[in-house]
């Protein structure tokens, strides 16, 4: 039994609910975030090349893809952080009721977009 853990059924077998949407999105953003962090580590290593070569990075962030990368990073990490907070409350024994679970699920979805706007807005305003 130790080496024969059951696999999760394929996601298409379930009807979609807020909880399943959040669960699969949490996993997908988790994998995306580790790729983003690896790219950020690569960004730090590019600093070693000096200011003349760093123009490549600056030019990238001025493009549409560069801006999309920053917006996507802020949303993906915001979503991940809100999911973690939801999970931590579950671990403390709160929020298991179906209605509460749906409300907190929606709060994670809308909250991640609101956080993204607030964080990016802070940079635009200041």
């Amino acid at each position, binding site marked *: 039994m130790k*080496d024969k*853990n059951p*696999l*999760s059924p394929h996601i298409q077998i379930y009807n979609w609910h807020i909880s399943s949407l959040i669960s699969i999105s949490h*996993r997908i953003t*988790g*994998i995306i*975030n*580790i790729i983003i*962090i*690896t790219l950020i*580590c690569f960004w*730090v*290593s590019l*600093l*070693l090349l*000096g*200011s003349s070569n*760093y*123009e490549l990075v*600056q030019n990238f*962030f*001025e493009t549409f893809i560069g801006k999309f990368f*920053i917006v996507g*990073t*802020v949303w993906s*990490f*915001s979503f*991940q*952080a809100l999911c*973690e*907070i939801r*999970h*931590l409350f579950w*671990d403390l024994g709160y929020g298991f009721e179906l209605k509460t679970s749906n409300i907190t699920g929606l709060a994670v979805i809308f909250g991640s977009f609101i956080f993204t706007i607030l*964080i*990016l807005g*802070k*940079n635009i305003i*200041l």
Partner: protein
Amino acid sequence: MIGATKKWIFLKVSSAILVPLILWFLLNLVSFYDKSYEEVLLFFTSQPSKFIFSLFIIFAYFYSALSISEVFEDYIENEKLKNVANKLLYLSAIIIPVLTLFLLFRLSL
């Protein structure tokens, strides 16, 4: 305490630490990503941002390695393939942050 319980505790502790680190990183990222080389270099090499960024990288990789190994556990049936995937994951979760921290300290010199 069995291994799975230890893994769960590590996952929960690292996620609780990571939440404020994520917020700190995002707030700083949006304010320096398009700045000049000198300003970006100053952010990564001056304190306390160097110390907090180092913590962020360490906990992010630690947490990601543990949580992605759960994804492997759920979706990879072949035991050999799962073991190889987990070993590559744990290896990269050690090498990349260590290398990045080394580069950060080289940049500070």
